[in-house]
Each structure stands twice: as structure tokens, then as C-alpha cells.
């Protein structure tokens, strides 16, 4: 097997055993990016000299010699983040960000910067100063956002894993659209320093995107700076909420997710419990208001009037609309946050995880990111955020796991959310689900990743 197609943990093991030369793996990764990236626009910058220097100085850490892509959301010592935009309203500069240090200290090699939805403001990845990233499963489809490039790069096997960021679902959506496993950590547990909103955000976290849960555990442990030890999901109590998030979804998504929940129950010897969780709509709006308010730091009317015309009209307009949001609504959002945190705390006394579809429909077309749901046609952004915002608002961890392919051959995903600090349990549950499915969905590869391999 080509080393580029190994799991991240297998790459680590092969390098440690001397079966794979890390320098050759890096060169092969760069060659594969050159070969495959034009079709998906996942990687927007490579820097072979800096990557080779990282490798030369890499400690014998848990990711020694493994090439990784990082989202265009943090600075690197040789490159400031652009946040997928022609202009940021916050100042940025090259530097050692938290995720950079975490990867470096684990021995990883940052091989490229991943594309992203402009300003992190979309779930589709079809708007970016670099041009849209494309989904390796169908390059006319959205890869998901805002961590579009990290997901597309991993799904196309340019790398075995990538670092994304999740403020309103931005790790989980692209993981779901691209058939990957993506972890949104408990707030504050994963490296965030250096992010231009790190000082103000109460929503955004860094998180891993990999083919499966074991690789997410490995990469996540580096980002957490602590071992996300494998445990046991035996007897898992799975909460199911009968609400828009589970019912206003495409029939094929509902079917695959229900089957996955039942398979997980059977695999863990657990139980499925129908639970009530009122207030999801208010929670979604509260999260949207919170992130929009937090993103106003440093914004002045003068800066808005000087916005680069290359910033997309939708983000230019929305940046200005944010200035009109009433403060009273943000205060009310804070109260909703407290309400939902209390409701979740009570709910997690009854169940270990709550499960519903990550995305209500498979990846929509790049040109028109709309989805057909039982309630009618909606923008993908409107539909997607409903199922994702709760975890960001309340701080709980969440994971997206592939659970099927739809009629158009596009991935379907189940999201599981757990109590604060239960990140490792979510990985355990994801692994149980993989076993229940004989790894069918985590081992599925898009057409682009089955192309003629480059060698190591």
C-alpha cells in the first residue's frame, strides 16, 4: 500500500519502524497535492522549505513525520492567516499559533494551508478568496464549510488528517459532506491561541478531520495536549430527539441515521431513549447572534466603509448588517445559552450521547447550495446550522461520523453530542459505530482518492 493511503496512525507506525522515510513521505505528499489538488482546490498554499525545516527539527512525538494540513484560520511563523478572505477586519500577522505549536511539538509536519469558506461564514465552502474548494466525491458539489480545504484534502488523501475550526459546525459540516470523521471538542480544550478571535470567542474551537475516529483521537490528542484515551462505549445510552433536527431531513438521511443509531445500540449493548430538548430554534439563533456579536471586535464604520471590494458582496453586506443587531437580543442569547446548558446538564444525566443527522441532506451543488427537505427548499446554510449550533452555544463536544452514501453516491453522516469533557467517549462511540458497520463508511473512498497513486 502506498504510504500516502495509510491511516495517520499507520503512517506514524511505519515511520517509527523505519518502513517509511518521513522525508520521502513529505515529498510524495507534495507531489500528490500537485497532482490532485487542481481538481478540488483544497490546499491554497504549500511551503516545501518550511515543511522540510519542520521535519528536520521534528521531535520524536506521537505524530513524528506525519504531513498535516491546517485551515487558513491560524497564523504560521511564515504566513498570516487570511481566513479565506481578501481582507479581515481584525489584524493578523505571522506567528506561532496554538495549533502550530501543538502540531510541531507532536512532531507533525505542516505541509499546506487548507482553503475555507470566506470569513468562516458558511457551511458550504463555495465562497473563498481562493475560489471554491470542491468535494472529492463529486467536484461539482460543495465540500462543506467553513473547513472546506482541510476536509477535501483529507478525503482526497492528500494527507491523512487536517486541522479545522468549528464555530457553528465548521468541522462537522465538511466532515459530513466529505465522508470523514470530524470532532468538535469541548470548548476550551483544544489549541486556539493565535486565532484572531481567540480572546473573544466563546464558540470557536480547533478540531481534527480524519478518515476515522482512531486518527481523530491521535490528531485530537495533539491539539488537546493530552491523551484522549480509548475507552469503552459499552451500554451506551443514546438519546434521540424528535424535532426538526431529526425529522426535517431528506428521507435517505433519516433512514441511514436511524439505521446507524440502531447499529450503535446493538454494538454497544446499549439503549435508545427518546428525550425532550425544547428550545433548539432559540439556541440556534442565540449561537448565530453570539458569533456575529463577537466578530464585531475591532470593527468600526470607517473600516466597514473601506472593505476590500474583493470581499464577497454577501459578506460585505452581512458585516454591515451586524452593526444593526440589537444588544438586547445578545443579552437574551446569553440567557438562552444558560437555559440550554441547564437543560443539557439534566439530559446528560439520562443519556450518554444525543444523536441526530449532522447534515439534513447530502452535499448540494456548488453553483446553487440549496437542499430539498420535507419542509421545502432551503439554503444549505439555513438547514445545516440548526443541527450544529447547540454544541457551540453550550460548549459540549460533538462528532460527525459517516454512516452511508446517498442515492447520488454522496456521504451521509450522524452527529453525536456528549456532556462537557466527554470527547473521548464520543470517539469511543464513533469507533463502536465503525465496528458495527464493518468500517464500510470510514473506509469508503471518493473517486478522486482512487486515482493512480504516487509512490513512496
Amino acid at each position, binding site marked *: 500500500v502506498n504510504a500516502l493511503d495509510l491511516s495517520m496512525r499507520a503512517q506514524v507506525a511505519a515511520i517509527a519502524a523505519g518502513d517509511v522515510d518521513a522525508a520521502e513521505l513529505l515529498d510524495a505528499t507534495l507531489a500528490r497535492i500537485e497532482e490532485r489538488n487542481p481538481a478540488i482546490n483544497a490546499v491554497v498554499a504549500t511551503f516545501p522549505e518550511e515543511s522540510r525545516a519542520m521535519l528536520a527539527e521534528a521531535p520524536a512525538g506521537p505524530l513524528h513525520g506525519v504531513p498535516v494540513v491546517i485551515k487558513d484560520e491560524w497564523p504560521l511563523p511564515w504566513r498570516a492567516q487570511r481566513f479565506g478572505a481578501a481582507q479581515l477586519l481584525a489584524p493578523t500577522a505571522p506567528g506561532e499559533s496554538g495549533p502550530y505549536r501543538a502540531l510541531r511539538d507532536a512532531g507533525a509536519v505542516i505541509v499546506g494551508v487548507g482553503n475555507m469558506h470566506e470569513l468562516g461564514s458558511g457551511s458550504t465552502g463555495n465562497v473563498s478568496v481562493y475560489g471554491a474548494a470542491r468535494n472529492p466525491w463529486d467536484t461539482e458539489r460543495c465540500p462543506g464549510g467553513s473547513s472546506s480545504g482541510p476536509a477535501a484534502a483529507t478525503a482526497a488523501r492528500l494527507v491523512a488528517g487536517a486541522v479545522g475550526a468549528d464555530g457553528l459546525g465548521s468541522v462537522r459540516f465538511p466532515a459530513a459532506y466529505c465522508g470523514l470523521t470530524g470532532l468538535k471538542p*469541548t*470548548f*476550551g*480544550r483544544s489549541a486556539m491561541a493565535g486565532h484572531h478571535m481567540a480572546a473573544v470567542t*466563546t464558540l470557536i474551537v480547533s478540531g481534527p478531520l480524519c478518515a476515522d475516529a482512531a486518527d481523530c483521537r491521535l490528531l485530537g490528542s495533539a491539539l488537546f495536549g493530552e491523551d484522549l484515551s480509548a475507552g469503552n462505549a459499552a451500554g451506551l445510552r443514546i438519546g434521540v430527539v424528535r424535532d426538526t433536527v431529526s425529522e426535517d431531513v431528506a428521507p435517505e438521511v433519516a433512514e441511514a441515521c436511524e439505521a446507524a443509531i440502531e447499529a450503535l445500540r446493538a454494538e454497544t449493548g446499549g439503549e435508545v431513549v427518546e428525550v425532550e430538548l425544547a428550545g433548539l*430554534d*432559540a439556541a440556534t*439563533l*442565540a449561537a*448565530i*447572534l453570539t458569533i456575529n456579536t463577537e466578530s464585531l471586535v475591532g470593527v468600526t*464604520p470607517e473600516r*466597514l*466603509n473601506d472593505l476590500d471590494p474583493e470581499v464577497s*458582496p*454577501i459578506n*460585505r*453586506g*452581512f458585516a*454591515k*448588517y451586524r*452593526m*444593526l*443587531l*440589537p444588544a*438586547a*437580543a445578545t*443579552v*437574551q*442569547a*446569553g*440567557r*438562552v*445559552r*444558560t*437555559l440550554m*446548558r*441547564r437543560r*443539557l*446538564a439534566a439530559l*446528560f444525566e439520562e443519556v450518554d450521547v444525543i444523536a441526530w443527522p449532522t447534515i439534513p441532506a447530502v452535499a448540494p451543488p456548488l453553483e446553487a447550495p440549496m437542499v430539498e427537505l420535507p419542509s421545502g427548499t432551503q439554503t444549505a446554510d*439555513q438547514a445545516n446550522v440548526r443541527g450544529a449550533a447547540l454544541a457551540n452555544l*453550550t*460548549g459540549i463536544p460533538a462528532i460527525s461520523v459517516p454512516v452511508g452514501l446517498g442515492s447520488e453516491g454522496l456521504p451521509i453522516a450522524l452527529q453525536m453530542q456528549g*456532556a*462537557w*469533557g466527554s470527547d473521548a467517549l464520543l470517539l469511543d462511540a464513533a469507533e463502536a459505530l465503525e465496528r458495527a458497520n464493518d468500517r464500510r463508511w470510514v473506509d469508503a473512498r471518493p473517486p478522486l482518492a482512487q486515482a493512480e497513486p504516487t509512490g513512496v
Partner: protein
Amino acid sequence: MEAADQAEQFIPAGLASLQIEADEIELAVINAAHQMFWPAIRALLSLDLGDLEPERDPDLSRPPVQP
């Protein structure tokens, strides 16, 4: 002036009072965003949460401290 007419002035008046300029396309985006969000914002503002007070400086990595 009717309340509905005044509401229609919210966007242009708000932008003007902050001296924020917007071209035609940006205005179309702003109006679309307003139509999408404002009814939900009004509903949120009207939500009766009783005497619930937000957590003071919550630690979002942990469960809420019970009152």
C-alpha cells in the same frame, strides 16, 4: 408615520446613523438578512424566560453551575 413604514426605514436609517455606506448589492444582502433574521430576533426578544439570569462568566468547558 405608520409603524410598518418606520420599520422599513430601519436599515437605511440605521446605516445612515452609523455613517455606514452600502452599495446596491450590499443593501440587497442586508435587506435579505434582515428579512431572514428579524422575525426570529423579535421572537427571541419576546421569549419569556422568567427570572432566568445568564451565568456570570460561564466556564463553557464544564457543566453549568446550578443556581
